[in-house]
């Protein structure tokens, strides 16, 4: 049995009085890629953001239930949110490098987390860029602006930035949807290699992408978790009719 990295227990999320997620029970295995799929507005991105409390930035929201990270409730008052987001990093749909050098982008999280000396930071930046499969393309121009990189490179830079602070879990919200097929393939290969050391949760609208890269797929609809199973089961013989209708494009 795989170890559990994150477990949602009867987790509900409200935007004002609107219940965007309803009693979600979901275990996310360690060192696996879990894909969250479902039509727009189904709650999958809300769930993803709930996993490192980025939703609370919005006003007038509240939760019910619990989300456990390594057995601890991340919504507990004692939890330091900055530390939580270090442990549970995030990569967004649109790459969002800071208007700084490539090096400073990756070093940013280390510096705000009060990381020690220059040599350590340099080593960690290099390792993170290597892990994000970007080092070979940027090693000779670390001082250049990150904004000069291509779209695919910028996204891998954001992944390197997330890796630099040594997270346990990486959340990805449509990380390849704005990229061309070659850049998309690089991101997918990267996800495949990263799962050896990290737990990855990814939201994607690209069904084939979910099928290719994930071990487990969870299908959300109207704020409910309809079905979760091994990805090969979901894409060959799902248990629920709604899941079959969605993945075969016969929804609604």
């Amino acid at each position: 049995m795989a170890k559990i990295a994150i477990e949602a227990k009867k987790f509900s999320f409200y935007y004002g009085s609107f219940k965007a997620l309803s009693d979600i029970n979901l275990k996310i295995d360690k060192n696996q890629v879990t894909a969250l799929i479902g039509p727009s507005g189904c709650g999958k991105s809300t769930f993803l953001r709930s996993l490192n409390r980025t939703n609370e930035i919005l006003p007038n929201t509240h939760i019910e239930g619990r989300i456990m990270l390594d057995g601890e409730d991340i919504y507990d008052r004692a939890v330091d949110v900055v530390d939580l987001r270090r442990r549970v990093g995030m990569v967004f749909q649109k790459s969002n490098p800071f208007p700084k050098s490539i090096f400073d982008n990756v070093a940013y999280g280390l510096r705000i987390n009060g990381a020690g000396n220059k040599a350590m930071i340099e080593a960690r930046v290099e390792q993170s860029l290597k892990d994000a499969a970007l080092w070979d393309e940027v090693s000779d121009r670390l001082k250049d602006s990150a904004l000069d990189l291509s779209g695919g490179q910028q996204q891998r830079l954001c992944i390197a930035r997330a890796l630099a602070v040594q997270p346990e879990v990486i959340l990805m919200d449509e990380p390849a949807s704005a990229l061309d097929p070659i850049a998309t393939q690089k991101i997918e290969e990267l996800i495949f290699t990263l799962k050896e050391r990290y737990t990855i949760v990814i939201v994607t609208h690209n069904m084939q992408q979910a099928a290719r890269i994930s071990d487990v797929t969870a299908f959300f609809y109207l704020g409910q978790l309809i079905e979760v199973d091994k990805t090969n089961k979901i894409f060959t013989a799902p248990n629920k009719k709604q899941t079959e209708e969605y993945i075969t494009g016969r929804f609604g």
Partner: protein
Amino acid sequence: MQNHFNQELANLKKNIQQMAELVDVQLEFAMQAMQTGNLELCKFVRNRDREIDAYDNLIQAQCENIIALFQPVAGDLRFIMTSLMINSQLERCGDIAVNIVKRVQKTLQKRDLLTDSGIQKLGSLARSMARDAIEAFMNNNLELAGKVIARDDEVDQQCRNTFHWLIDKMQSDAQLVEPGAHLIVLSRQLERLADHATNIAEDVIFLIEARIVAHQKK
């Protein structure tokens, strides 16, 4: 896009249906040729096999296109896989119709041997299995598919009976060795026809229930 995809699936199913009907008619004529020894019918069946072969190629190309262009999953994927498998089973059923009439032509001088051997009973058992298997696929009929599989043993038994009967005849009269050998081959073809029907029925169960039942001990 979805309509376009559904249209492709409908086209594929229509072609398999037409191929199945053609195979059914070929088998019907082969059975009639067996009963009557009508040479014209034998020639007709032999000439018409190329139409089945054309469907075989067409359906294979259609399946390849659908997989490449639409990347079907779940029930849609099983439908394409099943179509490919049933396509090749049907093509072999067509070949069997041709093989039947060839053996009929080779045994025209000894019609009694064929008539008395129980081969016609074997033929009608195998053919009704093939017919039901095709119908089970066309109408997603799980129950009928199960019944087809259950009948395979009866065919095997009849085939053994025919074999022993023919061996006895061949031992008693050397003149019957050559036609008897042709009829053993013919009975073997009919037994294969029932196997193809069983395979089709197993494919139907896979299509409907996502369960692989082939190669399981009864």
